[in-house]
């Protein structure tokens, strides 16, 4: 396990042996982020005009990239089965609309989800590590992850220890990710930074660098449980971190913005941003996901509009 510097040929830091002080010194070499500049860059992505065939391709791709999510206290097996049916066949009247990428549920509903999507391409993702706060001791988190993987989850969405990160105990944060990665076994690990609690884009970049170095397969913005969820500038900084990691190591890390993405138009802005930041290679459900609960119907509405030339009301799209 090693951390490679994001931009230059600094010697790699061996995380396994690194003290907190060494990690801190390493983080001071991560280039800063200018928030104003990042916002200006994002405005250019938003101003791209995506029409006609390009729009249809984007909408269909967006469907394939969705992690349909339900993470509520009142979730039931019935609710999850409904969501699974929607994910398998998002628009019953239009068989050209592909299935979504995955269902994302709480640990207790993993068996239901696994059964509901059996024999389909859809993966099952489970949040774990005492999502959303993560405020329990590490052994509890490890047990939870082992349980969801044993229950058949293909993907695990963990939360980082923001308390440790913000108090400067990077070693504790990193140790948790390394331990969870190990507990995941064959399951893919998505590491949620909960960027709304990190305070600024410099911290977003630092947390991204550390998460990737500790073994994240995907980095993810948010739990969706606090008001500040995924934003384009936050996602841009994470994509840039992924790009530098790829330039240095050739390793592909995935990205998942989650929470707050509700319109097809916004989803297309994300796709433009990936296309122009990481390139077309990342325009794939293997490397990009949307964590969403209400985006799908707006995308379906746009697809039907492109095909028929007029909008249909909300009642013509199923609510799962």
């Amino acid at each position, binding site marked *: 396990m090693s951390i490679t510097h994001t931009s230059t040929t600094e010697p790699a830091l061996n995380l396994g042996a690194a003290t907190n002080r060494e990690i801190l010194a390493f983080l001071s070499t991560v280039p*800063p982020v200018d928030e104003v500049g990042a916002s200006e860059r994002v405005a250019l992505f938003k101003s791209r005009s995506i029409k006609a065939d390009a729009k249809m391709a984007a909408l269909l791709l967006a469907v394939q990239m969705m992690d349909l999510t339900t993470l509520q206290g009142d979730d039931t097996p019935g609710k999850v089965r409904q969501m699974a049916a929607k994910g398998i066949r998002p628009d019953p009247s239009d068989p050209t609309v592909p299935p979504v990428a995955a269902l994302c549920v709480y640990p207790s509903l993993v068996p239901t989800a696994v059964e509901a999507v059996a024999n389909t391409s859809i993966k099952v993702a489970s949040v774990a590590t005492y999502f959303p706060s993560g405020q329990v001791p590490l052994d509890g988190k490890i047990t939870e992850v082992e349980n969801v993987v044993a229950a058949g989850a293909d993907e695990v969405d963990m939360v980082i220890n923001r308390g440790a990160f913000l108090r400067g105990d990077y070693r504790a944060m990193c140790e948790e990710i390394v331990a969870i990665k190990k507990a995941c076994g064959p399951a893919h690990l998505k590491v949620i930074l909960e960027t709304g609690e990190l305070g600024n884009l410099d911290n977003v970049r630092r947390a991204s660098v550390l998460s990737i170095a500790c073994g994240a397969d995907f980095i993810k913005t948010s739990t969706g449980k606090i008001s500040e969820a995924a934003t384009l500038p936050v996602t841009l900084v994470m994509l840039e971190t992924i790009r530098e990691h790829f330039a240095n190591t050739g390793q592909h890390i995935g990205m998942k913005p989650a929470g707050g993405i509700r319109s097809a138009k916004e989803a297309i802005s994300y796709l433009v941003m990936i296309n122009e930041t990481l390139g077309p290679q990342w325009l794939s459900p293997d490397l990009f996901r949307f964590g969403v609960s209400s985006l799908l119907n707006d995308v379906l509405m746009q697809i039907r509009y492109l095909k028929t030339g007029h909008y249909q009301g909300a009642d013509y799209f199923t609510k799962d």
Partner: protein
Amino acid sequence: MTVDQTDPTNEPWEYAPSTQSTDVVDIASRYGLWIHGEEVDPASGSYFATTNPATEDRIAEVASGDRVDIDRAVKSARSATKGWASLPAAERSKYLFRIARLVQERSRELAVLESLDGGKPIKESRDIDVNLVAAHFFYYAGWADKLEYAFAGLDPKPLGVAGQIIPWNFPLLMLAWKVAPALATGNTVVLKPAETTPLTALVFAQITAEAGLPPGVLNIVTGAGDTGAALAAHDGIDKIAFTGSTAVGKNIQKVAAANNTRVTLELGGKGAHIVFDDAAIDQAIEGVINGIFFNQGHVCCAGSRLLVQESIRDVFLDRLRTRISTLRVGDPLDKNTDVGAVNSKAQLARIEELVAAGKDEGNDWFQSDCALPSDGYFFAPTVFTDVAQSSRIAQEEIFGPVLSVMTFRTAAEAVEKANNTPYGLSAGIWTNKGSRILWMADRMRSGVVWANTFNKFDPASPFGGYQESGFGREGGRHGLLPYLESGVA
């Protein structure tokens, strides 16, 4: 493209063309001169064609004004000075506010016309040029009745008739920079637009008529270099304001000296971006891209030299190389175009000549491998690396999408190299360290210093140069002074 549901990555996602409709603009087949509030034929009866640089198609014929027309326009402007200057200042404000609002109302039309005639991407003419034009008129409308407070005790008075010659890179915006302060201060104007981009000025003339601007307050005489020379040499003007090349600027200064005409000049530049190793690199890359590829590099304050700290040279150039490959070069009217058409055949030849010189000198270079349209004047974004200070491409203004990269080791060396140019218009400093920004800005010999950003314009901020970049300031309170007779000016 169609999405292959098993592997969506096997075909790149191409943005479909998203072309701005030209229905919003009604172009006449022929335009006369604008003198004394009406369109008139040129004395010579001769016209020249203005073309679309993206297609080489002729757009319209425009009157070729000569010495006789200039004389007529100056006389019209002179006849209007008394009435205009003696209006209550608040009334002058009202005209400027009205013009600003009309520019906003017709913003889409003006943006499309600017892109058609000049080749700049519609996203720039729409989001930047026309918005700034309206902002400039709003800003100077506000000053018109406050001149006594701006220059308290100095009894500011208008000069009389201002001759103004503007370039082709920001046709309507340069008109606004010149016309708004001149009118706000009570002067009348004879304006000569650039030969290749006269159309938005002529639509602007119609806007002033719609605003009820009294005849003679604004006159527009189109034509080529001779027309401008005739204006500059006319002994009936009290002031000449010129934006354009340094060579022409020097001639204007000679002629103006002979006639005792006041002069302000806004000329060329060879602006330096200075990127320190602690900069926010991804945002610095964006700033450098914006600094040199904005408006195809046809920007007098373009950051055409990049001074990058040697320790981050490799990583910075790698990212720059990746980034320029994502710039979309092509049809200026496509809303997704980042780099449009070079303004004219002559300018394209100039760019090609200097790029060839840069290659002959043995500089390393790389270029975006974007496909260029077969018709029209286009040039791919180009970067020369490890350029010597003595190289032509480090010294001469290219005025195109061509960046020359040099390295430095210390801040002192960066200052020395950045200032080592006959020009002095703009500089950009990229560092995360606030104290270093101030240290550097103190030492930059350039009219504008941007920190961690570039090409930001605001009507409240003065703009102008040192040395061969000219003198006099446009914008802000400073921008009023060149149009005022007062105790200090």
